[in-house]
């Protein structure tokens, strides 16, 4: 195999090559950074749409009607029982009177429902907010076991939301997939070009007796270094702009949607950092390796 001395030389060559071919290195790095930004953007967007829709879903509460004739003690007991169900975040009691007045208010205080006041037909109820919509079914099941309650939740509306959610997820995955492919193509395209520019150099090395491995190694090292540095740069840009943007959006705009937040940056980065690093250094390595191959055939 290669001598230690030679390996050291080739490693140094790779590093020095970055500076000597800085125009090409910058072009590659620029492309990789921009492509990883696209990736990061599409991932952040996708995951946040998901996240935000999930939060909105939880706003669809569960309503449990209390059977006529249930006494006050029993109601207090029920309330405690409901609050004890796992994943229940909030329980609110709405008395018959409150229900009627809110119903009438909904009807804009008009004369049509006048006769309701004679004999209030509306039941008292609990409004229950679940901490995450995924557990809604589970909570509803639990509530179903209480004979004093008649539980109802916005099945249809929740369904629509879940479907929108699914669709958007599906689309955002498709888009992310497409963007990853496009990004990979763009990156290999540029790397190929930068190697193509140096084909004469590669040829010369071959003509004076260098082995393929000898020529390739510095290119691979250059590629990996460019890829890794680009990935780090992209990650920094994503972190900074994500926290900046999500702040602005949360305060300025999403504020309207009472308290919706963006996925915390830590969550995003947990996945994005390894992916960026792997793609960055991988594309640098594999891109350079394959691009150089055909120029070695002299």
């Amino acid at each position: 195999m290669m001598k230690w001395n030679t390996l050291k030389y080739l490693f140094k060559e790779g590093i020095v090559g970055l500076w000597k071919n800085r125009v090409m290195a910058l072009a590659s790095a620029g492309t990789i950074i921009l492509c990883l930004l696209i990736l990061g953007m599409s991932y952040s967007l996708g995951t946040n749409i998901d996240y935000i829709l999930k939060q909105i879903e939880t706003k669809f509460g569960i309503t449990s009607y209390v059977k006529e004739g249930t006494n006050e003690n029993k109601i207090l007991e029920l309330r405690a029982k409901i609050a004890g169900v796992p994943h229940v975040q909030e329980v609110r009691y709405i008395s018959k009177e409150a229900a009627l007045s809110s119903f009438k208010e909904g009807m804009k205080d008009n004369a049509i429902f006048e006769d309701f006041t004679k004999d209030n037909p509306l039941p008292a109820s609990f409004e229950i907010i679940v901490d995450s919509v995924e557990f809604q079914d589970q909570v509803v099941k639990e509530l179903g076991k209480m004979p004093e309650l008649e539980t109802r939740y916005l099945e249809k509306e929740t369904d629509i939301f879940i479907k929108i959610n699914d669709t958007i997820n599906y689309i955002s995955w498709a888009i992310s997939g497409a963007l990853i492919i496009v990004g990979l193509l763009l990156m290999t395209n540029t790397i190929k070009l930068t190697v193509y520019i140096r084909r004469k150099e590669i040829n010369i090395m071959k003509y004076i007796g260098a082995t393929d491995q000898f020529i390739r190694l510095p290119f691979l090292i250059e590629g990996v270094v460019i890829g890794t540095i680009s990935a780090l740069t992209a990650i920094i840009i994503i972190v900074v702009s994500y926290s900046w943007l999500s702040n602005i959006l949360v305060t300025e705009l999403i504020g309207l949607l009472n308290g919706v937040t963006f996925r915390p940056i830590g969550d995003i980065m947990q996945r994005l950092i390894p992916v960026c690093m792997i793609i960055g250094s991988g594309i640098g390595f594999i891109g350079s390796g394959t691009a150089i191959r055909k120029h070695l055939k002299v």
Partner: protein
Amino acid sequence: MIYLQHVSKTYSNGAIGLNSTNLSIEKGEFVFITGNSGSGKSTLLRLLLKEIEPSHGKIIINNRDITKLKRKQIPYLRRDIGVVFQDFRLLPTKTVYENVAFAMQIVGATNREIRKNVPIILGLVGLARKARCYPEELSGGEQQRTALARAIINNSPILIADEPTGNLDPATSWEIMNCLQDINKRGVTIVMATHEREIVNTLKKRVIEITNGSVTKDMHEGGYDDEMEYSQVFV
């Protein structure tokens, strides 16, 4: 050492580089290849280096038919041959020193050897003061001498030089030729394409003349085949 058997080279555009050439060069010889511009001198040298493939024929170097060489073995063939290309082919991103050192790195020389030998060779070709220059900062002749330094640094058993004095003034040319003769005396086989009548005529080595791709003359202790005194005819 070097044998060509019925070697022809026709380029893809139909140009004839070499035309059924037979040639044998023994170990330790010093051979001049002469001939008009475009006659096929460089083609011959490039065939020896497996830079191009012959259209027909066998080329045997060190008892091996190099046309049958596997891809993996080509670098080892080339390490046996030091080359000065007509167009120099220096690495543009490396200094003079690095270009010469690179040839030593290829064969796995130690840093010690490199640090010792490169300055010696650069001194020999008169480039000691240009060691840190990049090729584009050199004059034509300096580039040529860098190429020569690179070709001789590894003490390869064969040296191929394509007009290694084309960009050099007579004084420097003679220094270089002297240096080549020394190398030849140490047993290195030298094949050198040249137009320099004076050098060929003075050194009295074997001269192979190529005309339109064919060997038309092969003389030991030959001279430049230039019977007309052009200077008389044309002026």
